[in-house]
């Protein structure tokens, strides 16, 4: 069944916002505008509420935005919602950042085209107000001496601004409505007001927090009614009977949700979009989403079909409408991030499949409907994550392959056998761990629980560069950016090199922790989120903001290049210490000279004589494992501001390509400018020559529970997903599950298609590839990224 025409039209008209058009070296899509409405209203409220508690000011700010922002609908849409004054525009968040944006709109033509002269002037005026307490930039006052932290200081990178990750309790919202939550807040507030046994300072703070929740939740409840009123207004011009009936239904829906409980699928989907837009775009920029879509929406679908309220086709059209709506999301990104973000980072992930709290499979009709819509509508949002476990039905495997086969590079497949124990290991009770969803690219959260963290990271830990530092006393060129480790002549054995490397890793992980913690303290003080707090379990009960505590420590560091480092260490071990073919000094000299001229000989030696990760060779695979164990140990040592250890993140996105472009040669034979391997544990490009199963065996040795390894990308030819091969591919996926591979993503396009797409982008507007944790239109990627996708080892039969 094909998708409906109206949703196809809406999809095509959607301005993809967070995806920079890197192909033509533009950071910003043409026609994209900055909408200053949110920033203007928020600033007005802050000016008027000077001196009030921060949570109240933020609640009033959100309420004012929701009450007075311009609303719009698009022709023919069934599900409504917006977060800026047109679907071509994005808001800005001056409380988070201003410096880079001012610079970008002043100096870069693509950014300055997003505002007219008056708009630019107003933006500067607004920023003027926030300069003293906007988050980004304030960290400078708190960085300890001797720590590299700026963007470009490569080992850690520094931070720009950070997307937040958190998943509200959608089940609760849909079943009691915001009015039900308000009732809970009010009851608690009455209780606290009357309760003098609570220490006074705490009691007053609780009262402020609960009032802030009340103000913002009431405003969110009103938002649906504002939409209903607008639809009534717009109805006058409509003559078409069918559309009038639709509008009546939409009006009824918006009168009901999000204030009241959702009574049917349409209301549930509309409520989901309202809440998502408020918390992910209007209140704060937040990626991820993390809804278990089929688990939550399946019962509504079943009921509506059973009652005859909806046909299956009507239900599908509504799901399509949600997908189209989600594709509208986005933010204006810092110029530096466009290269790193590449695509998708503004998008939202929907989780399907998996188990309930008892461990029983939850697959239902909505699981299949969502996958069908994904394959047929070919939007790049939402991202789809499917959980597989021992009891995943055969039909679901087939639905996965049918979806992959459409070429949409969806879904990513996640392994419950790894994710559940991992969460249990972090301190989550098993019943709750089973309820996890995938948020952002590949991070787990427990929906509805007070899990919150930032996805923008405090920078990245580039492991192969730690090896470079280890062999140069912590220096990068003339600058000291790492720990002081022994000079070259004191490195007498491989163990000496290894120890120096570990010391550099430790120093870098520490730096990341410091920067992240400074950022968290600032966010806690200046950006409380009363509305989202009310939607996360425990905050109303505690009378506190979500940032005051943490249900589970999921803050993580971005670490990549493990296998470049492992290949490099294995080469040093073999060529210098085991075989004595070259001296360490010669090796270092070769790397410094980018393996050019006479040093090409050494690069060839590395290429042909030393073992590479991804070929099931213990000599090097064990090094990868040890490196990741060291990283994990260092992450464990540095805790977040809530006292929980940091964990590793596999969401490298396109950072290995971006970082590779600016970083010098490394010891694995990689020359300056070449990318590092993608994901957190994929073999280095073109070095896994022993076939896909050997790659998997290598990856399986670096066990995710022990080391935190994550992402394995596999690009498949379409033939893999033909019906004849469903059984084989099902067994393949089951094997990955049995081998405790954390998750796998498929690119299902053949090399010739990609080469042709590179040459004739105009013919391949729909071609979607999975880059690393996200999907993007191939033609929107820059040439290097395109080459990278093409070069990744193709798995062919």
């Amino acid at each position, binding site marked *: 069944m094909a998708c409906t025409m109206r949703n196809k039209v809406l999809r095509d008209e959607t301005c993809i916002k967070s995806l920079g058009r890197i192909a033509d070296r533009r950071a910003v899509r043409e026609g994209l505008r900055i909408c200053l409405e949110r920033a203007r209203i928020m600033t007005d409220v802050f000016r008027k509420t000077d001196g009030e508690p921060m949570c109240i000011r933020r609640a009033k700010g959100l309420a004012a935005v929701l009450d007075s922002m311009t609303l719009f609908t698009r022709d023919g849409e069934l599900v409504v919602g917006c977060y800026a004054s047109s679907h071509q525009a994005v808001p800005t968040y001056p409380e988070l950042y201003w410096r880079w944006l001012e610079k970008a709109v002043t100096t870069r033509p693509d950014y300055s085209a997003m505002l007219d002269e008056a708009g630019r002037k107003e933006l500067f005026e607004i920023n003027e107000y926030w300069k003293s307490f906007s988050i980004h930039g304030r960290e400078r006052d708190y960085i300890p001496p001797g720590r590299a932290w700026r963007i470009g200081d490569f080992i850690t990178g520094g931070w720009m601004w950070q997307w937040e990750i958190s998943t509200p309790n959608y089940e609760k919202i849909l079943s009691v409505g915001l009015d039900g939550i308000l009732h809970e807040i009010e009851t608690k507030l009455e209780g606290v007001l009357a309760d003098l046994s609570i220490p006074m300072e705490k009691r007053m703070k609780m009262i402020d927090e609960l009032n802030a929740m009340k103000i913002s939740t009431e405003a969110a409840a009103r938002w649906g009614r504002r939409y209903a009123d607008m639809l009534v207004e717009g109805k006058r011009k409509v003559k078409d009977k069918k559309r009038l009936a639709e509008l009546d239904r939409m009006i009824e829906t918006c009168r009901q949700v999000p204030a009241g409980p959702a009574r049917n699928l349409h209301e549930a989907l509309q409520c989901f979009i309202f809440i998502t837009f408020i918390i992910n775009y209007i209140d704060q920029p937040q990626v991820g989403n993390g809804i278990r879509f089929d688990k939550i929406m399946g019962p509504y679908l079943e009921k509506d079909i059973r009652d005859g309220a909806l046909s299956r086709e009507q239900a599908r059209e509504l799901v399509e409408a949600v997908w189209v709506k989600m594709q509208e999301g986005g933010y204006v990104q810092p110029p530096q991030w466009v290269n790193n973000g590449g695509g998708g980072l503004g998008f939202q992930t929907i989780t399907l499949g998996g188990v309930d709290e008892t461990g029983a499979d939850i697959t239902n009709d909505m699981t299949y409907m969502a996958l069908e819509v994904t394959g047929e509508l070919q939007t790049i949002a939402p991202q789809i994550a499917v959980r597989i476990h021992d009891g995943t039905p055969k039909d679901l495997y087939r639905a996965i392959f049918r979806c992959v086969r459409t070429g949409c590079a969806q879904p990513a497949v996640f392994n419950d056998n790894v994710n559940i124990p991992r969460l249990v290991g972090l301190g989550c009770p098993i019943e709750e761990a089973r309820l996890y969803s995938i948020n952002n690219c590949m991070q787990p959260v427990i929906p509805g629980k007070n899990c919150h963290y930032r996805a923008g990271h405090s920078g990245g830990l580039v492991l192969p560069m730690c090896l470079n530092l280890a062999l140069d006393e912590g220096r990068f060129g003339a600058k000291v950016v790492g720990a002081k480790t022994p000079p070259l002549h004191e490195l007498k054995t491989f163990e000496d090199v290894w120890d120096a490397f570990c010391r550099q890793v430790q120093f870098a992980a520490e730096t990341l922790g410091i920067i992240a913690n400074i950022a968290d303290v600032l966010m806690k003080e200046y950006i409380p989120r009363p509305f989202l707090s009310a939607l996360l379990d425990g905050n109303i009960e505690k009378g506190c903001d979500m940032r005051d505590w943490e249900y589970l420590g999921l803050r993580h560091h971005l670490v990549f290049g493990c296998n470049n480092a492992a290949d490099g260490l294995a080469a040093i071990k073999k060529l210098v210490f085991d075989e004595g073919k070259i001296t360490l000094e010669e090796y270092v000299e070769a790397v410094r000279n980018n393996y050019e001229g006479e040093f090409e000989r050494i690069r*060839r030696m590395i290429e*042909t004589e030393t073992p590479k990760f991804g070929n*099931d060779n213990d000599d090097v695979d064990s090094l990868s494992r040890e490196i990741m164990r060291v990283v994990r140990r260092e992450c464990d040592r540095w805790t977040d501001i809530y006292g929980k250890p940091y964990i590793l993140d596999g969401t490298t996105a396109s950072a290995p390509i971006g970082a590779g472009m600016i970083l010098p040669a490394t010891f694995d034979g990689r020359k300056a400018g070449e990318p590092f391997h993608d994901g957190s544990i994929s073999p280095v490009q073109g070095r896994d020559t*022993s*076939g*896909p*199963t*050997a790659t998997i*065996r290598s990856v399986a040795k670096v066990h995710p529970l022990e080391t935190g390894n994550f992402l394995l990308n596999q690009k498949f030819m379409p*033939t893999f997903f033909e019906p004849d*091969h469903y*059984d*084989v591919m*099902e*067994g*393949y996926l*089951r*094997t990955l599950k*049995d*081998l405790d591979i954390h998750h796998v993503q498929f690119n299902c396009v053949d090399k010739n298609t990609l080469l042709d797409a590179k040459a004739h982008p105009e013919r391949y507007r729909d071609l979607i590839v999975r880059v690393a944790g996200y999907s993007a239109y191939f033609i929107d990627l820059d040439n290097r990224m395109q080459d990278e996708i093409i070069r990744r080892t193709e*798995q062919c*039969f």
Partner: protein
Amino acid sequence: MRSDGTRGMVFNVQSFSIHDGPGIRTTLFLKGCPLRCPWCSNPESVSPSVQVKISAERCTGCGRCVEVCTRKALSLVEPGRVSLVRSRCDDCLECVKACEYGAVGTVGYEIDAAQAARLLLKDSAFYFNTHGGVTLSGGEPLYQHEFARRILALVHDAGIHTAIDTTGCAPWEALESVLPHTDMVLYDVKHVDAGRHRAATGMDNTLILENLQRLGGRTVIWTRTPLIPGFNDDPGVTDAIVALARDVGAQRCCFLPLHRWGEHKYERLGLVDPYGAFREFGPGELERLRERYACLNGFVTFEKS
């Protein structure tokens, strides 16, 4: 290579293959073959010994291989591009020692049967989940039948499904000796006519057909026919092959339309590319054949090339 079969000569281990029997399989390719089929996609399988192989893309044009070659088998056809003429080469491998760039290398290596079995068992988890296993192919795997038997026995004893992909052109005793350790046989039937068979492959098919008849009923058989335009794609021939397959109780009768994926290998081995001599399938030809056996769907299969 030892005559007791504890060691043997192989040239490739192909993991994740799904065309050599059921499920995900690992195929071990053994060297040596009695037939000389011109469409062969593994020309490196024919000779039972190590051979010189050129990777011209790695050549820098230093010319050292040309200098050491006493038989003038190597030459630089253009600066930075070495080329081999197989008929002049005696595989003395002096050139391989001389090349520093990996442009002149070898194909084929000796391996211990036990070591080979260990290698093949590594993907057991995949076999288990897909009802796959291990396939010995070639060349003709029975060319080194004792070596093959030892590997099959080790793999089979580990509980893994085993298959051989054979031309059938081997003494019955050799074939029979592997049967206790072999769960299925992929049996090549190139043509039913002895003369046509000999003309194309250099060998009669009498032994092949005899062996097939004796094999019938003793194991699971999939007959496999490389479908070559103008040679065996005539409905009369394919009908006879299908009938033969049914007659011996084969579980499947597979047709594998000619493909040219082995084309680049000919140049690497210094051989003349044979594919120019074959015509392509005409439009609709394959579809018509497929249509012809549609009622036998499941028994007669056509693989995608």
